[in-house]
């Protein structure tokens, strides 16, 4: 026998001696915890119970938190309006109203879902169900290069990638955690849905539902593919062993749950929030300047953002997209929620009439390409801030941005050409 085994045995032997002299074990009937597990981890009930709980977690994280986010939004919109109405210098009014208050609102709307995600996670962790959830899902997740504990962060990605990526903190294994973070932006967050609804609704009428669903499925498929690839190519293909302790169930304490949620939420405020705020101001500047040319920030066509839109046009031309799509995608980099709104501004029609305006700028094939790009192309600014925080620097964040751009271009290209081949214009 080698020394590693010998000393492990020697240590346990020594422990046995010590405990033999100071501890007695009284046989106890089957514990409460074991009885719960008989149901919760049952061969047939295990998965339904798991899915029900996951549904509840998702609802709690995004539906229950929504009114709080709305309140934040309303508050900062009001601040913004107030600033614009009271400050006489229009450029300063725009800076304070749209830039600063707009930026603050943009950053702080993430606070409620983050806090709620962490409360839900703390409850799962403290009750002891989190490791059971991993136990139930591990098999399925290892098939796609992830592991049991990746499931919850991936699921939360459908709501918003920011709290989802922060939720990977429950994954102890560094490589597993990195991979889960890196593919998370491929889970289609709720901010991308309006883009799908618009384009699918206009160009695929009857089949809109199917087209939208396939965007979500495409995201999942690509996440699985990339996770497998990353594990093989970037991390040397070594699967990390899963040795997960299954602690007895306990009743969580309110204080414990709140402390844990608060402590983790504070990390977001302290770290990511500053990066995001600066980014928000930068984007405000690009879309409203040069001040004269944009006539005080109202003619987007003449802004630096439009310059960028035109600059990317040659790149996206082969996908059937023009510079208006370029500006919308650039704006989407700030937050995917504003892609539709930006198109409205660019076409000068307002958000309600975008539908009729896009008909002349897109075809069914290029609309599909646009949806695919929106799904994949770039993590939004907030996600980039979180990626940097959780991946520990710009190196891996840059990697994520780069692979997503390339992937978006490739997949959109395939979809566009595929459409042409089967005769969809």
């Amino acid at each position: 026998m080698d020394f590693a085994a010998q000393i492990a045995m020697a240590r346990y032997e020594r422990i046995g001696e010590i405990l033999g002299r100071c501890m007695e074990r009284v046989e106890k009937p089957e514990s409460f915890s074991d009885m719960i597990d008989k149901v919760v981890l049952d061969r047939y009930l295990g998965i339904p119970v798991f899915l029900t709980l996951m549904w509840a977690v998702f609802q709690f994280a995004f539906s229950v938190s929504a009114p709080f986010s709305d309140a934040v939004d309303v508050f900062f919109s009001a601040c913004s309006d107030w600033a614009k109405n009271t400050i006489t210098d229009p450029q300063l009014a725009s800076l304070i109203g749209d830039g600063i208050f707009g930026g603050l609102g943009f950053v702080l709307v993430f606070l409620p879902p983050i806090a709620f995600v962490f409360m839900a996670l703390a409850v799962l962790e403290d009750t002891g169900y989190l490791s059971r959830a991993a136990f139930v899902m591990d098999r399925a997740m290892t098939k796609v290069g992830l592991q049991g504990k990746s499931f919850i962060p991936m699921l939360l990605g459908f709501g918003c990638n920011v709290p989802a990526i922060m939720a990977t903190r429950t994954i102890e294994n560094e490589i597993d955690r990195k991979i889960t973070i890196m593919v998370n932006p491929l889970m289609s967050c709720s901010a991308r849905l309006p883009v799908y609804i618009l384009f699918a609704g206009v160009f695929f009428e009857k089949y809109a539902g199917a087209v939208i669903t396939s965007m979500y499925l495409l995201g999942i498929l690509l996440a699985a593919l990339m996770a497998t690839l990353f594990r093989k190519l970037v991390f040397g293909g070594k699967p990390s062993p899963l040795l997960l302790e299954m602690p007895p169930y306990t009743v969580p304490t309110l204080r414990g749950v709140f402390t844990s949620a608060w402590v983790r939420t504070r990390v977001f405020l302290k770290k990511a929030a500053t990066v995001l705020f600066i980014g928000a101001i930068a984007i405000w500047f690009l879309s409203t300047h040069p001040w004269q040319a944009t006539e005080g920030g109202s003619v987007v066509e003449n802004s630096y953002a439009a310059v960028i839109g035109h600059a990317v046009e040659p790149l996206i031309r082969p996908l059937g997209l023009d510079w208006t799509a370029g500006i919308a995608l650039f704006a989407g980099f700030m937050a995917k929620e504003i892609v539709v709104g930006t198109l409205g501004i660019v076409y000068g029609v307002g958000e309600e009439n975008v539908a009729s305006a896009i008909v002349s700028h897109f075809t069914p094939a290029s609309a599909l390409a646009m949806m695919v790009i929106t799904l994949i192309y770039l993590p939004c600014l907030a996600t980039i801030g979180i990626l940097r925080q959780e991946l520990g620097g710009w190196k891996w964040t840059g990697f994520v941005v780069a692979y997503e751009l390339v992937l978006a271009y490739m997949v959109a290209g395939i979809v566009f050409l595929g459409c042409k081949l089967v005769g969809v214009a």
Partner: protein
Amino acid sequence: MKLSEVEPGSVVVIADVHGNPEVRKKLLDMGLIKGAEVKVVRNAPLKDPMEIEVKGYNLSIRKVEAEKVLVVER
């Protein structure tokens, strides 16, 4: 016999632990040492991983790792 093949409900004794040094060390650290009693509690709903009881606590272990643990009847 491999630990991965043991039916839920049975109690067995570890005879040897193989595997690459890193994984093996990990298993040893978690108490999967020669002579230790292990109870197989259940398999996950998707058959893998499995839950075992060792050294007075419950541990989830994947079948690939459990294959590296050789056990004998008590």
